[in-house]
C-alpha cells in the first residue's frame, strides 16, 4: 500500500472542498481499500465521510430519499423499502456477502469499480486503470465481460446489483459540488466506456453523492430480481435482471426492465419495456420482449453464452415478477 493521508469530514461542505484538492472519499471501504492494497488506486488523501448525517431512509412528497451512507444491509431490511420498493431489497440481498453488506454504503455501491481481472492486476494492461495501456480483456479472458455498449478500449462491466434495481426504478442521484446541488437521473449517472474508460460515471471529481431518490411507483406487488452466478452466493452476476410489472389483471399496464453483468453501466431496457406494455403477462410476451432486449448485443471469445443466457434470465425474471413460477 502506498502512503496516504487520512482525514474525517464533519460537514458535507468540508468534504466537497477537500475533494477539490485531489482527495478521495472513503465510506465503507470495502472496495476502495482492496484496490489500494493492490496498488490499483493510490489516492494521496482519504476523506472519511462516515460521520456525516447521510444514513437515513425517509419518505417525503411522493418519493423515498435514501442517504448516501445508508448501509446496503440497512436498506435491504428497511420496512419502508420492503413495502414500497422490494425490488431494491431483493437486488441488494443478491449482492456480496452479509458481512460486506453490513459495511457497504449506497454511495460506495454506486461508485464501486469494475471487477475486471485486468483492471485489478497492475502487471496487466488496462485502459481503465492506466489509459493507453490497452484493454487486456478484449483479446484475453472475457467470460465475465460486457455484451452491450462496449468499445475497443474497454469491455468491462459495472458489477453492482443495487444499481440494476435503481435504474429500473427511475431513481435520481442527488450530488453536491462546489457550485451546489445537482440531480442526475440514474440512467445518466453511469456511462459507457467509449474512448474514456477511465471514467466510470458522470460524477465530477469534486462532487459528493448525498442521496438517492426513488419516486413512488406501482411496481411493489410484481417485481423480481433474478441473478445467475457461478456460485449460489457471494459472486458477481454472469447476468442479472431486475423486472417490475404493473399488472391490471392479466395485462401489463407498465413494465420496467434492466440488466446487470452485461454492460459498463446498469443496462436499462426501454424498448423491451415498451413491447411489454399493454400485452398479456404470458411467457410468449416475455420471450418477445427478451428478443427485443437482446438486439445489438455483441459477444467476445468467452462470453457468447450471455447471448443465450440473457434472454432466458429476462423471461425468468418476468415470469417470477408476474407470479407465473
Amino acid at each position, binding site marked *: 500500500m502506498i502512503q496516504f493521508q487520512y482525514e474525517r469530514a464533519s460537514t458535507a461542505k468540508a468534504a466537497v472542498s477537500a475533494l477539490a484538492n485531489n482527495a478521495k472519499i472513503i465510506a465503507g471501504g470495502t472496495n476502495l481499500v482492496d484496490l489500494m492494497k493492490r496498488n490499483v488506486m493510490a489516492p494521496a488523501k482519504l476523506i472519511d465521510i462516515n460521520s456525516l448525517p447521510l444514513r437515513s431512509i425517509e419518505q417525503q412528497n411522493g418519493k423515498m430519499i435514501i442517504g448516501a451512507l445508508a448501509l446496503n444491509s440497512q436498506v435491504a431490511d428497511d420496512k419502508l423499502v420492503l413495502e414500497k420498493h422490494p425490488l431494491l431489497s431483493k437486488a441488494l440481498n443478491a449482492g456480496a456477502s452479509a458481512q460486506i453488506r453490513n459495511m457497504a454504503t449506497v454511495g460506495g455501491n454506486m461508485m464501486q469499480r469494475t471487477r475486471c481481472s485486468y483492471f485489478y492486476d497492475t502487471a496487466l494492461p488496462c485502459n481503465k486503470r492506466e489509459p493507453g495501456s490497452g484493454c487486456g480483456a478484449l483479446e484475453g*479472458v472475457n467470460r465475465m465481460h460486457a455484451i452491450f455498449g462496449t468499445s475497443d478500449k474497454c469491455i468491462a462491466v459495472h458489477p453492482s446489483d443495487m444499481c440494476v434495481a435503481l435504474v429500473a426504478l427511475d431513481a435520481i442521484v442527488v450530488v453536491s459540488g462546489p457550485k451546489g446541488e445537482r440531480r442526475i437521473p440514474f440512467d445518466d449517472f453511469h456511462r459507457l466506456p467509449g474512448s474514456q474508460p477511465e471514467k466510470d460515471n458522470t460524477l465530477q471529481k469534486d462532487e459528493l453523492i448525498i442521496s438517492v431518490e426513488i419516486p413512488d411507483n406501482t411496481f411493489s406487488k410484481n417485481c423480481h430480481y433474478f441473478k445467475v452466478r457461478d456460485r449460489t452466493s457471494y459472486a458477481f452476476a454472469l447476468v442479472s435482471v431486475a423486472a417490475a410489472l404493473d399488472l391490471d389483471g392479466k395485462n401489463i399496464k407498465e413494465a420496467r426492465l434492466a440488466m446487470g453483468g452485461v454492460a459498463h453501466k446498469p443496462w436499462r431496457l426501454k424498448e423491451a419495456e415498451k413491447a411489454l406494455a399493454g400485452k398479456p403477462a404470458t411467457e410468449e410476451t416475455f420471450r418477445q420482449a427478451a428478443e427485443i432486449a437482446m438486439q445489438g448485443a455483441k459477444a467476445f471469445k468467452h462470453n457468447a453464452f450471455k447471448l443465450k443466457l440473457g434472454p432466458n434470465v429476462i423471461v425468468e425474471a418476468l415470469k417470477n415478477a408476474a407470479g407465473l413460477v
Partner: protein
Amino acid sequence: MNEAFFDKKEYKPLDRVDGRLKVTGAAKYSAEYALPNMAYGVLVGSRIAKGTIKSIDSKAAERAPGVLAVISHLNVIKIPGYAARGVHPSEPPTGGQPLRVFYDNKVYSNDQPIAIVVATSLEKAQYGASLVKVQYDQQEHQTDFEANAKNAVIAAAAKKNPKSPTADYDRGQTDAFETAPFRIEAEYVLPTEMHNPMELQAITAHWEADDRLTIYDKVQGTKTTQKTFAKEWDVPEQNVKVIATFVGGAFGNGLHSWPHESAAIIAAKQVKRPVKVVLTREQMFTMVGYRPRTWQKIQMGAAKDGKLVAINHHSIGQTSTYEEFTETTLMQTRMMYASPNVSTRYRLLPLNVATPIWMRGPGEATGAFALESAMDEMAHAIGMDPIEFRLANYTETDPDKNMPWSTKYMRECYEEGKKRIGWENRKLKPGSVRDGEWLVGYGMGTGTFGANRGPATVKAELDLEGNLVMHCAITDIGPGTATAMVQVASNTTGIAPEKITFHLGSSEFPNAGLQGGSSTVNSVGPAVQAACNALKEQLITMAAAKSGPDFGAAKPDDIMFEKGEIQLSGKSSAKLKLSDLFKQNNIQKIEATQESKPSENGKKYSMNAFSMHFAMVHVHPFTGQVRVKKIVCCADAGTIVSPKTAESQMIGGATGGIGMALTEDAVMDHRFGRYVTKDFGDYHVPVHADVPDIDVYFVNKPDLLADPVGSKGLGEIAIIGVAPAIANAVFNATGKRVRHLPITPDKLLGL
C-alpha cells in the same frame, strides 16, 4: 482379554480438545509469533513467465522509510545447500530441482519470487516492494495446456522404474476394447485448482545463533521440514527447530518446502533479525503449489450383462519445467473393478508454470472423476442402473496386485447410500424427474486411497494424579489429530479424555511423518497405543511387587484406569490407587516412548480405504444453475476413532468435491502466463449456500491387518468420488454430460 472392557471401548463423539483455543483466538498460528526485533518481508514476484532478469533497480526501495534490505540473486548470501543440485530430501516422488529462490537470474514462471523487501513494519515492506523496478529479457513462454499437450512426456521416475505407479501398465489384452459389445470413449478435463486454505502460508524465521534456526512455519511435516532446511543451511538437524502447533488448513500445500520459506530464512540471516513472511492471497496461487490441470481419456468396453471387458485410461498432468510432480491419477482404474483388460498411460506436460503439489485426494480425486464418469456413461449405454453395473464388476481381490483385500466393505456402502439418498426415486432415463421448473437427478461416485502407514513415535507420561501427557512431532492441519489421539489413548487406558493432553507440531517432539496421504491416525494411533501399553507394563510391574500374583500375571489389555485407580479385569477385579502406588515407589510420574512401524501385512494384503458418495441435484433448465440438494458420504475407513471430527472431515471433503464439480477454476491468460482468477472473489470455493445437508455413514469395522488401531485413513477419500457423483447426477437430471469441470451455468444452457 476381557469382553466387558471391550464393550467400554466404543469410541464416542468428542468435542475438539483444542476447539476452545481455536474459537477464542488463543491458538497461535505461524504468523502470530511476535518475536522481539522482528522484521517483515514482502516478496516481489516476476512479471514475466520465462526469461532472465536483466536488472533490478532497488535504490528507491532501499531509501524508503524502514526498509532494512532488498535481497535478490544480486546480493544474496551464499546458501551452502544450493550447491548440491537435485538434493531434495523431503519429497522423493517429486523429481528434478525445486526452485532455489534468488539462485540466479532465471525466471521459470510468472510471479516467481525474485526479490524480498525487508522492513521494520509490514506496511513499510509493502511500500518498499512497490518501488522495486525490474527489467527482463523475456523469452517466449508456454503455459497453454491444450496447445502443448502433444509435448507431454513419460515421467523420469517411470522410465527408471517400470513398476512405478506412473509407468505404462497393461493387464490382459491391450486390444480388448476394440471388440467389446458396448464401447464408450470420452475425454475429461480437470482445470488447475488451488488449495486455498483459509490461513495464508506464513513463516517466522529466527536465527537464534549463527548455526541455530527456529522457524514457526505452516507445514504438514515438522521433521521433514527440519531435514530440508538443515540440508539447505548445512547445519546439524537438531539445530533446526520447526514449530507448527496450529495449521489453519493446508490440503497438501504444506507438503513441500517453498521459495518463500527459504526467502524468509535468508532474509533473517541477512538482516540479523527474525523475519516474518506472510503470502498474499494472490501469491497463494503462484508460490505454494496447486492441483495440476489434467486431461484424461477413457476407452471402456463392456458386455451386455454389464461385465467390463476393458478399460484404457490415459492422462496428462501439468508440471513445471524444473520439477516433475507426478501423482497416482490412474491407480483407481487398475484396482477398483474386475476388468480383465486394463491399460494405463501417464504423461507429464512441463510448462512455464510453478510446480504443482498434492491436493486433497491427490491423483485419485482427478482419476476418479474420469473413471467414475465413464462408469456412469457405460451404465447408461448398456441401460443398467449405475450401482448394479458397479456391483456386476465388484472385485473380492485386488486385480492389480493380485492380493486379497485386508478388508473391503463396499457392499455395505452401496446399500446404505442407496437408502439414504433415496435412490429409488432415480429414473434410468435422464431428464425425467422434475420439481417445479427444476430438473432432478441422482448420481454416485466411488473412491479409494491406500491405507498408508509409516513409522511414528510417541512419548507418554503419567503422573500420580492420573494425568496423561503425550508428545509427537506430527502436525494437525485441521482434522483434529490431538482429539483423535486423545481418544485412542483414552480407549487404551480408560483414562477420561479431560485428563489426557496430546502435544504435537514441533520437531522437538518424537518422530512422525507428514500429515498427508490419510496416514496420521493409522501411523500415530498405533504409537499412542504402544506408549500407553508400555506405561501399563510399568504399572503392572509396580503393582505386582506390591499386591502379589493378581497383577503379576496381567497383560496391558487386562488393566484399565478409572477415577485414579488401576483396575484389573477378570474375577478378582483388584483395584489399586494410582497415587498410592506412585507414593510407595517414591516417584512422581512414569514415562514411556514407543515407536510403531508398519507390519509385513502390506506384502500379503492390499490395504485400502473406500468411499462412496451420492448426490441429488436440481438443475434449472433455462439458466443452467445447479443446486446440490443432498449428499450422502459413505466410507469404509476401518475403525472410526473420533466420530465427531471424522464426520467433519467427510463434510469438508464433500464440500471440496462440490467446488471441484461446480465452481473451482484457476484461469490463466496465456498471453502473459498469468492467472486472472486469483482471489476469493473470483476463484470460487463453495459458500454455505452451495452446500446442502451432508449425511455421513461409516461402516466402522476395524481393519486389524492394516494396523493395531484398525483404522484405514479418511482424509483423502472424503473428496475422492464426490465430483463424479455430482456430474453424474447432473447428467441424470438433464441428459447432458459435462466432461470439462467445473460445471458452470454456461455449460448447461440450451437444455
